[in-house]
């Protein structure tokens, strides 16, 4: 652990409080925050930053998270004073530059997904999901179809899917996957009916394979009166190849902080734009950006879209993130966008083949990898007791971030690996060499893995103690 900012305390005399505010409304307890000098602040947080792994410093093959390069130009552009200093309540005529960017981004995301309309307002994937299923709810309600309380969701789905469905008032029904990774159609058929509002899928699925019968699934769900929700977190796999709109999805969200290269920032902010087919347009969350005959742009409000599901944040969403996504898309253009999935797939399939070559077991060996793939180290566990967690921790010692582990939960001892298109062959080859070495170590000196990481500021942390003690704020 580095020094705490609370070590840098300085005792300066207090400030005189305004006299026009009655005493009983003022602070009772003195404000006990540190007063470090600027250099102390700079040094403390600069040093802390150095204790992070990040895309800018490490290979970060964290499955389902699309940790690809976040172009710096996007950050520079979003930080321009003309954007950064804009108050959200600036009248539209005085923010045409920003509205232009947002309007274009709406258009481009619609084009990229094959959807009719887009709202950029959701703050992250999960909020996009909530808005998306809320639109499904609103759609059925608007048709007077009130009995549809169930949302079908694959067992392998990301946790936000059921959580969002639940927040939107749906009951969640989990659908299993078959051994080849595709959905269990029989189960689906059994559960489709007039009480089903829709299904939430991502394709390629979180199992790292493409759901081949998607058109069939769409037909069945639509046939039963349900709608299809596309969790766009895996869009990096298919950008410019297949479009959710063409696959039959009615509504979706996009994780701009994955596919569109906006940074993760150690946990956000993201942006979870939603895209819909024409029939769901009236329900889009607000505000969106609309264009008048003369070309002037303005925020679309409830007056114009009275059946909107409403608003999910006080203003227009995570606009700074949207600016970055816009810059990324504009830089890549049509051709660049299509390359994303091609090289994401090339890197994933190459890595899968190479890791198999050095002895790792694929969860779906018969299948093409999409932009990511799953290994299972159950074989290692059986042979040596070594678990996916141990492999993950040992990777950190080599300056490589661990893949996602234990997700999706249905593959035991799994590693979900997503290299992304922005990594070079040399980086992948080094990863393979390290993984081969780790496999060797697991067989020969398993304690090396079990006690990993060895070379980081801290070793494995006592998470049980953390929860028990619950030291979640510095003592005063």
């Amino acid at each position, binding site marked *: *652990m*580095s020094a*705490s900012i*609370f070590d840098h305390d300085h005792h*300066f005399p207090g400030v*005189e409080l305004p006299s026009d505010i009655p005493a009983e409304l*003022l*602070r009772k307890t003195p*404000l006990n*925050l540190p*007063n470090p000098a600027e250099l102390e*602040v700079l040094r403390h947080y*600069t040093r*802390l930053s150095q204790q*992070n792994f990040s895309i*800018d410093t490490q290979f970060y093959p964290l499955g389902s998270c699309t940790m690809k390069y*976040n172009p710096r*130009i996007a*950050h520079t552009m979003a930080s321009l004073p003309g954007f950064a200093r*804009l108050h959200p309540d600036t009248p539209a005529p*005085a923010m*045409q530059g920003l509205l*232009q960017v947002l309007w274009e981004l709406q258009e481009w995301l619609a*084009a990229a997904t094959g959807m009719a309309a887009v709202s950029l307002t959701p*703050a992250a994937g*999960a909020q996009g*999901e*909530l808005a998306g299923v*809320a639109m499904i709810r609103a759609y059925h309600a608007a048709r007077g179809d009130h009995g549809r309380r169930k949302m079908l969701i694959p067992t392998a789905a990301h946790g*936000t899917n059921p959580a969002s469905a639940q*927040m939107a008032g749906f009951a*969640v029904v989990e659908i299993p996957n078959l051994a080849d990774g595709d959905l269990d159609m029989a189960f689906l058929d059994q559960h489709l009916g007039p009480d089903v509002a829709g299904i939430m899928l991502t394709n390629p699925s979180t199992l790292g394979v493409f759901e081949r019968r998607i058109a069939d699934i769409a037909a069945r769900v639509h046939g039963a009166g349900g709608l299809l929700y596309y969790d766009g977190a895996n869009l990096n796999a298919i950008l410019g190849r297949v479009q959710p709109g063409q696959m039959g999805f009615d509504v979706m969200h996009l994780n701009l902080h994955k596919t569109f290269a906006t940074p993760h*920032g150690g*946990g*956000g*902010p993201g942006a979870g734009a939603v895209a819909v087919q024409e029939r769901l347009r009236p329900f889009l969350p607000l505000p969106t950006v609309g264009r008048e005959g003369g070309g002037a742009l303005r925020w679309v409000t409830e007056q114009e879209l009275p059946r909107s599901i*409403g608003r*999910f*944040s*006080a*203003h227009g969403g*995570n*606009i*700074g993130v949207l600016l970055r996504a816009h*810059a990324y898309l504009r830089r*890549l253009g*049509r*051709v*660049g966008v299509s390359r994303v999935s091609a090289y994401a*797939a090339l890197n994933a399939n190459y890595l899968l083949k*190479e890791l198999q070559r050095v002895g790792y077991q694929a969860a779906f060996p018969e299948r*093409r990898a999409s932009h990511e793939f799953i290994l299972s180290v159950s074989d290692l566990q059986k042979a040596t007791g070594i678990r996916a967690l141990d492999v993950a921790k040992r990777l*950190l010692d080599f300056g490589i971030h661990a893949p996602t582990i234990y997700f999706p939960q249905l593959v035991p001892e799994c590693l979900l690996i997503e290299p992304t*298109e*922005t990594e070079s062959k040399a980086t992948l080859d080094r990863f393979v060499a390290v993984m081969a070495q780790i496999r060797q170590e697991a067989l020969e000196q398993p304690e090396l893995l079990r006690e990993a990481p060895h070379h980081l500021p801290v*070793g494995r*942390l*006592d998470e049980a103690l953390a929860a028990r003690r*619950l030291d979640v704020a510095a003592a*005063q």
Partner: protein
Amino acid sequence: MPYIPHDGLETAAMLAAVGVERLDQLFDEIPPTLLVHDMVLPEGLSEMALHRELEGRAMSNAPLRCFAGGGAYAHHIPAIVWEIAGRGEFYSAYTPYQPEASQGTLQVVYEYQSFITRLTGLEVSNASLYDGASGLAEACLMALRIQGGDKSILVPENLLPGWRRVLDSVLGLQNIRLVSVPYDRATGTLILPAEAGDAAALIIPQSSALGLLEPVDALTDWAHGHDLLAIAVVNPLALALLKAPGDWGTQGADIAVGEGQPLGIPLTGGGPYFGFLACRKAHVRQLPGRLVAKTVDGQGREGFCLTLQAREQHIRRGKATSNICTNQGLMVTAATIHMATLGGRGLQQTAVLCHERAALLRELLTAVPGVSLPYGGPFFHEFVLRLPQAAVAVRDALLGHGLLAGLPLADWGMGEAGDLLVCTTELLEEADLLAYRDALTSVLETL
């Protein structure tokens, strides 16, 4: 190829290793009928051309002196804040799932949580929510979980309307009833409700949409007297001066929530900002969002990790306390650095400055013929001005003077047509206040 490192030789070698000939073949499991035919996207631009295009867009947003608040405030952000927050190691890291490789982010969040608990006077702060408004919706859901049963929420009518709409959208999905608490049209502040009904909680804004300070002690005590939870809505900068929610009334508020934007986050047309949420330790298991705790490793070295993850969607799925996953991490990093840079003293000085400027401006503007003050009570750096003409028209006319003069209450469906919500921050110098006065005088004369 922008951002793709492969050259022709490498691509060929990799395709060969995979056992295919062309990149297209990697997609051979996709039914051909689904393949994209056309995508109407523009041509790509070089970085240079992109720079020029976006710089043009940025410059076509009018640069205005900002007298608008209403939940988003134009504060000075010290240069080091984004200089550090923007460092690649913070900027391009993921959520700290591997704590050993994320001690930087984790310690920052722990320090952030510490700052928030000290500002609010409550014991636990989460690692952030999307923004203040959605944070309030989460606070309401949390209160409902704590209180149990099928209850409603008491929502003041002078809550920021944008926030109210979010409550409507989010809580509406679960058919939760929102019962309005009216405010006194003469004083602008809340009237204690006659009865609590089946409410689980009362929302108490420390300063309302009208900029006025509410009698938080009485409201908190009223809530507790009726077995309601008290949800405090606070501006974190104001907390440098104003009573901390933990000290409200005899027992203190139960949950405090607010918009973190005043703590070093640029306005950027409305986001990304961040919501903060603090509560008593007793309620920590109902807390939505991430939480960081201090612990030790096998050698007894101190370190930080995420904790109580069983509340969250990736473990508890449909039964999680919230669906939130990605939060506003980088904003929290910036806010933490911002608070550390200003320090407790700097935060107080800033808050005092903001407020003193408002007091001065209020004086200057009420001296303009025809302008009056509908409310006389205490306020914090934001106040309603009653103009002799429609506030929308005046605001629009003042754009021509390079001023964003405030927020017409009519845009919110509140107050009278002439009401304009005006805000000052430390960024405005005396000359700016005088310029406002002069511009307003001339606009009112000619409009």
